[in-house]
């Protein structure tokens, strides 16, 4: 089987997931001749409240430049290979992200719905735990705190 097609990108500015998917479709169609039969998408947005339930002004995404991109590439490669996916896309925000803004987009194209859905979920969970991102919650009064874990599945 051919190596999975990977589109990994860190987004320092707000991005529009549907535009990113449209560009990905165009690139995939050109590369593959036709789009695979099954596709899964996940869009994550910043919720409007902090972990302690207070209104959130913004989320700050710090990361480890270099290691972040390498880990995303490695995890996407491993998940796609394990599930036999044809193509994987991960776009992830860094910097200051406002409530309601997209923070992560994961998309998987495969020949069947099972691999597409399972690969997408596995990759999303992996990137939450195995890629050096750190979230800091900023409140309206200027207080901030580092998030110490992930929300439940």
């Amino acid at each position, binding site marked *: 089987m051919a190596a999975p097609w990977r589109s990994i990108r860190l987004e320092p500015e707000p991005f529009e997931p549907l535009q990113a998917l449209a560009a990905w479709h165009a690139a995939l169609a050109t590369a593959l001749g036709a789009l695979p039969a099954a596709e899964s998408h996940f869009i994550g947005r910043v919720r409007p409240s902090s972990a302690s339930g207070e209104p959130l002004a913004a989320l700050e995404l710090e990361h*480890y430049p270099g290691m972040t991109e390498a880990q995303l590439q490695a995890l996407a490669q491993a998940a796609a290979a394990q599930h036999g996916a044809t193509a994987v896309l991960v776009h992830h925000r860094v910097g200051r992200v406002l409530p309601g803004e997209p923070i992560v987009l994961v998309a998987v194209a495969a020949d069947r719905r099972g691999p597409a859905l399972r690969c997408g979920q596995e990759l999303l969970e992996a990137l939450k735990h195995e890629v050096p991102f750190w979230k800091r919650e900023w409140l309206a009064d200027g207080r901030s705190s580092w998030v110490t874990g992930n929300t439940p599945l």
Partner: protein
Amino acid sequence: MLQPLPTAAEPTQQVRVRLFASLRDAMGWSEQLVRLETATATPLALWHQLGLGPEHQGPDEPPTEVRVAINQQFAAWDAPLQAGDELAFLPPISGG
């Protein structure tokens, strides 16, 4: 935010130590060059040498919440360090 060098070590005997997020804020520095004092230095040894752990923590106990990366790859607390390595201490990750 480069800190002054703690020693005038030759570059070939140093490792670059990096801190991120809550760990950086707690310690007040993000990066420094550290001279390798022994030929068998490990991340755990440098963690204690730099005073990064709580005082009640024994020298053989790695912190459970913090992970280590050497040259931008996850590594073990007892992995051998080489001169020129980049060593990072990573507080709990929260991506996605």
